[in-house]
């Protein structure tokens, strides 16, 4: 298929892998964090991890919106969903994430809560217009990629004066998460070494590449904003290796077919119009980070589910055996978790990283099991 096959060409991939191996010179390591869960999956799905030389190590970052949503926020959504007048509209990924006592929205739905799976914010708005007797709440999550779509429906609801629609906003910011990782004691004190970042290309279609420039400069870490096809990732890895070899720490744009330095001005404008920074927000794994998430501005408060409904936030600790937090911080790998693949599987997940199609544990489970000692006799 055009525009797809070109980026999945196995022969070019092998040439790129050879080039990476040639340039990743012995004697030093290249520890690269791919921030985005979509990248983690592509690395595993296409077997890129196996094609890289031992000097290049990929560290999986926290860029999975479902994974970083803390249980406390899910509990708030459950509370909303149990309200008899409320229809909660949510993305399919969120339905199976275990909250307190490993209960999920899917279970709440089976017990009678009115929860509907939608494919986008527009579906939730349309449902509210078609069902004026229901209080429709859109469970909004995601990094900057999905935020403008939520902003647009809030604006539209306000233009329509739609009183039965509101948004439970959980939009979070990529630069804040990267700053939190770089500023964490583990990284500052050298327990986790990150030499460079593969930047999330979809986020940069909105925010551009400029927001990474301060990190690259202040922390001396190169960033290459990357597309999601396997050849995109391999090229980005090669670009990072070259920067590190040359002692550079620039922000480079591999995903030039979709990303420009200053991003999408209209998307940024509508986001700013509707949302403002929260003082603080809890992230699973990363803790409570200041100015790391968005909420609706005062003038749109009528469409803010948190203001409209009484759903006080109460932090809930992760399951005690679950290592999602450490995995999201890049401290441990999914296979280091003692319940990985045993008590915690995609069918019966304990932590969010096993549920989301972008979660590291789900990627290891789906694709990584093969990499264990092979028992196959072909």
């Amino acid at each position, binding site marked *: *298929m055009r525009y797809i096959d070109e980026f999945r060409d*196995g022969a070019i*991939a092998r040439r790129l892998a050879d080039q990476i191996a040639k340039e990743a010179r012995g004697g030093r390591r290249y520890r690269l964090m791919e921030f985005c869960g979509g990248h983690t999956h592509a690395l595993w799905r296409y*077997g890129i991890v196996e094609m890289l030389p031992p000097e290049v190590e990929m560290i999986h970052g926290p860029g999975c919106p479902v994974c970083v949503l803390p249980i406390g926020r899910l509990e708030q959504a459950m509370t909303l969903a149990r309200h008899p007048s409320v229809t909660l509209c949510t993305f*399919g990924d969120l339905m199976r994430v275990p909250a307190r006592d490993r209960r999920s929205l899917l279970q709440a739905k089976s017990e009678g809560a009115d929860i509907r799976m939608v494919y986008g914010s527009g579906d939730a708005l349309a449902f509210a217009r078609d069902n004026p007797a229901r209080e429709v709440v859109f469970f909004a999550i995601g990094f900057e990629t999905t935020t403008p779509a939520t902003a647009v429906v809030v604006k539209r609801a306000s233009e329509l004066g739609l009183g039965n629609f509101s948004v439970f906003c959980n939009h979070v910011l990529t630069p804040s998460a990267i700053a939190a990782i770089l500023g964490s004691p583990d990284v500052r004190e050298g327990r986790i070494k990150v030499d460079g970042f593969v930047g999330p290309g979809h986020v940069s279609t909105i925010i551009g590449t400029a927001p990474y420039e301060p990190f690259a400069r202040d922390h001396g870490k190169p960033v290459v904003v990357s597309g999601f096809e396997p050849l995109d990732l391999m090229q980005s890895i090669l670009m990072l290796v070259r920067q590190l070899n040359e002692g550079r720490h620039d922000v480079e744009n591999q995903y030039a077919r979709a990303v420009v330095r200053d991003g999408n001005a209209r998307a940024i404008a509508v986001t700013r119009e509707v949302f403002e920074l929260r003082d603080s927000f809890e992230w699973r794994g990363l803790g409570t980070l200041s100015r790391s998430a968005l909420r609706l501005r005062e003038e749109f408060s009528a469409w803010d589910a948190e203001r409209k409904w009484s759903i006080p936030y109460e932090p809930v600790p992760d399951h005690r055996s679950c290592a999602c937090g450490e995995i999201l911080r890049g401290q441990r790998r999914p296979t280091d978790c003692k319940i990985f693949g045993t008590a915690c599987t995609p069918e019966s997940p304990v932590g969010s990283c096993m549920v989301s199609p972008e979660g590291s544990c789900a990627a290891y489970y789906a694709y990584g*099991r*093969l990499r264990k000692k092979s028992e196959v006799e072909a």
Partner: protein
Amino acid sequence: MASKWGRKLDVENGRVDMSHGSGGRAMAQLVDEVFVAAFDNPLLAQRNDQALFDVPAGRMVMTTDGYVVSPIFFPGGDIGSLAVHGTINDVAMAGARPLYLSASFILEEGFPLSDLRRVVASMAKASRDAGVPIVTGDTKVVERGKADGVFISTTGVGIVPPRVVGPSGDRAAPGDVVLVSGTVGDHGVAIMSSREGLTFETTITSDTAALHRIVARMVETVPDVRVLRDPTRGGLSATLNEIAAQSGVGMRLVEKAIPIREEVVAACELLGIDPLHLASEGRLIAICAPDDAERLLSVMRADPLGKDAAVIGNVVADARRFVQIETTFGGTRILDWLVGESLPRIC
């Protein structure tokens, strides 16, 4: 217009009401004017609560399936044709010749009679085209909100020809060859493209079809086909994982050998879905001994429903029962079961 029930059922504008399931005259009239008229066969016309028929000596198969697809009309088919094809196919996957079907309808109060007639006409056509009559049935009506329009259950019986060894999911052995009869995932994309909240433009139509004729030719040519199964819910991936688990083997597939329409690939890219998880309703997977593969492939390709048939991989010994796939990119990955339910009510 008059009928033996007095006023003829207003199929154009009428709707199912509770009296249509009450056991009274209204129900008898609905059965008579909608179902018996359309399905039109001597056994049903006897109007008994069961069908009585002779069967040849030998092995019989029996299967049952419920149909709740949403929407009930979709590009290339509807719940009625699906309910006939799906059950015929389940009988056929035992290597059997389907003989008879039953059909049970759960109707929601308020369901338009015109839609019911359309569904029933489609079932009748599918059954006639397949030569497998619907010989007994049942109708129930539930209050509005207790069902969704119409749900159909069909049961099928058939006989396995004497020469046929009997394909079964536990008979795949290392070295066997895995074949598929055509492009996979068409039905899944056809349903998704017409799903509320997800409408997108596609020329893809459902592949829903009765496979018993192609199966008859396949088992005639290769009486010891090890496994036959139609990759419906969960797609090729779930079906092969089921077989791997039943037979205690692994599989190794070649991605570029699997026939998939470009439009299906495109829709899946857009939606972030793996086409190998998407249902087909008129395709089958066959597993046979290596020596039989070439003959089986040529007999499949000679049938219109198998013109795109292909060898897609092999059965391997693997204690972990992994279905692996060699990607076009050059690596190997596990083809796993679909987790959760990305697309409910596909059939």
